[in-house]
């Protein structure tokens, strides 16, 4: 039986991942800020077969409570096999350009909070000597683009932090998985027109569970984003800066 901690458990992608783990009979510790949604998801997980589900509220920007929340989660579950971090927001890029305050807030939500939580979890997993840290960053973190570089910068920061962490924890038997979804049809992207490149959160969730099982370090999901991003990363900056991306 797997023990699983999910932060940002009400995210559509996290929720679908929770369903898959619930079906496997896992023990779940679900953390998010909206208690009503959390309770709905917890009940659903129980019916689907989760052995045990606990919930905990947390606004990730409330940094002062991180330590207690993580402490509690580890105390409750004992050993943890997978920590999944999925919280995030899609900043209004234009608004960020006009507001330092908003820009910093978005960086807090999408990068610093994650780094704080990662730091706390990493040490415990290191002591434990096993487990996977699975964090949803984004393909947007692979290169800065004018349409959404605040988000991109935050996700890129998380990815680089994860690289270092992976390098550090490898020797301790802990795997660090960087999950980089492309376009996913979730509440976060409700306002966008959907096209053929768009994936469903169910698909992303399945790929996450498989990648965790296989001990992968980086997951572009759906898979074709690996190739799209390979091209995007390799466009020379002299050309890239002229593009409307």
């Amino acid at each position, binding site marked *: 039986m797997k023990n699983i901690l999910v932060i940002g458990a009400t995210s559509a992608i996290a929720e679908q991942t929770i369903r898959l783990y619930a079906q496997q009979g896992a023990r779940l510790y679900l953390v998010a800020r909206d208690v009503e949604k959390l309770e709905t998801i917890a009940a659903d997980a129980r019916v689907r077969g989760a052995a045990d589900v606990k919930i905990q509220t947390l606004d990730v920007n409330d940094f002062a409570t991180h330590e207690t929340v993580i402490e509690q989660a580890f105390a409750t579950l004992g050993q943890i096999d997978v920590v999944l971090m999925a919280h995030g927001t899609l900043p209004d890029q234009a608004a960020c350009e006009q507001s330092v305050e908003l820009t910093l807030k978005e960086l807090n939500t999408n990068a610093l909070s994650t780094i704080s939580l990662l730091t706390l979890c990493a040490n415990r997993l290191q002591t434990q000597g096993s487990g996977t840290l699975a964090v949803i960053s984004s393909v947007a973190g692979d290169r800065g683009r004018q349409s959404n570089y605040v988000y991109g910068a935050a996700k890129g920061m998380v990815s680089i932090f994860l690289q270092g962490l992976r390098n550090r924890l490898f020797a301790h038997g802990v795997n660090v998985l960087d999950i980089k979804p492309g376009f996913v049809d979730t509440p976060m992207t*409700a306002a966008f027109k959907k096209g053929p490149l768009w994936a469903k959160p169910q698909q992303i969730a399945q790929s996450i569970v498989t990648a965790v099982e296989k001990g992968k370090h980086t997951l572009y999901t759906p898979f074709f984003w690996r190739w799209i991003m390979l091209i995007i990363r390799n466009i020379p900056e002299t050309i890239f800066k002229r593009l409307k991306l």
Partner: protein
Amino acid sequence: MNQGINQRTLCGWGQYPKTETELLNVHSQRRIAEMLAAPGEKSLIARGMGRSYGDSALAEQTLSTLHLNHLIEFNTDTGDIRCAAGVTLSELLEIFVPRGWFLPVTPGTKFVTVGGAIASDVHGKNHHLHGCFSDHVSALKLALANGDIITCSRSENASLFYATCGGMGLTGIILNATFRLIPIESALIAESSYKTANLAETLERFEEFEQATYSVAWIDCLSSGQKLGRSLLMLGEHVPQGDLQAHRSGKLKVPFNMPSQLLNRYSVQAFNTLYYHKQTRSHAQREVHYDPYFYPLDGLHDWNRLYGKNGFTQYQFVIPKAAGLEGMQTILQRIVASKRGSFLAVLKAFGKANDNLLSFPVEGYTLALDFKIDATLFAFLDELDRIVLDFGGRLYLTKDARMSETTFKQSYPNWEAFAEIRAQTGADRCFHSLQSLRLGL
């Protein structure tokens, strides 16, 4: 956060009619209640998987229930499941078959939502014994036109319960429901099939096998004269012991609308003949998985595109038992004479009607046929309507895209009681589908 409003062209499973609509993607029941509490100008209707054939789930604003997809509670002793209205039957099967539970009633596709199953009060191959889907529902939560959320059951808000089951989304948005699964020991169905020589024999066989859990007949609706109504009658029982493996999601897909000439009289005739002769002996038996048994067409996704871009309509009527053989013969003869093809012609015997105001089944026989839409089809169907009404029958709302207000009001005598409940709850100022407007509800 953005509510997710999308301007879309939508249609039902028959791809007729198509309409421009605002598709509302609402992610929680609280948001639905808030939205309803702030009244809008536009007509609004709930939409599940869009497997109704015509215009039942179309309006100026269409509220997708697919985000209401949570399971809430399961009682492992009784099999009572409470889940949100957007959960699909397919998903329930995936979760519960391995644990030894099955749907009490299932339509011929598993890609429908619980809300849709209740709103259309769907029936399956076991109607003669187990009634409609709603007969297994003990309670449901309904969001009314003013945003109030109430519980409806046979003892609480009973009149709204009887109006909502079979009520085609016109009383409110069903948010969740409790219904009872049935225990099974195997995912297999023991199927036995019988070839019958004509309609009279088919109906006799239904009588003879009225104790069979599942029964349905595929009519070769193109053969005439002595052979009119020759059928393959298929019975089914849950196998008492075996594997409890759920279905797997299919991969085959019809990628685009086929040129509609592909489905002409000859291909349909060939199909019907093949189907009938597929079985050479007069009686055969085999064990099949529930998936091909109940959902033979689900393996081919988007098969409705086979009918081409003008779409098709399914004509499903029921006539009371008393009118049975004569009525059915008259109508079949009319169809055969018209030389219009139907890919599918499914005949079923219904048991007693329930107390819901607009549920379709009445004790008797029901036949469902698909017709490709062309310029002269509707005039022909109007003619059939008259015969069906003459025999005291009616049409299934969830398949309908074209019947007239008069036809509807003549054949659904409870429509006035239904309209009254709509008026009492303010539903008539908010919930309309293209269908309800056409039928004068």
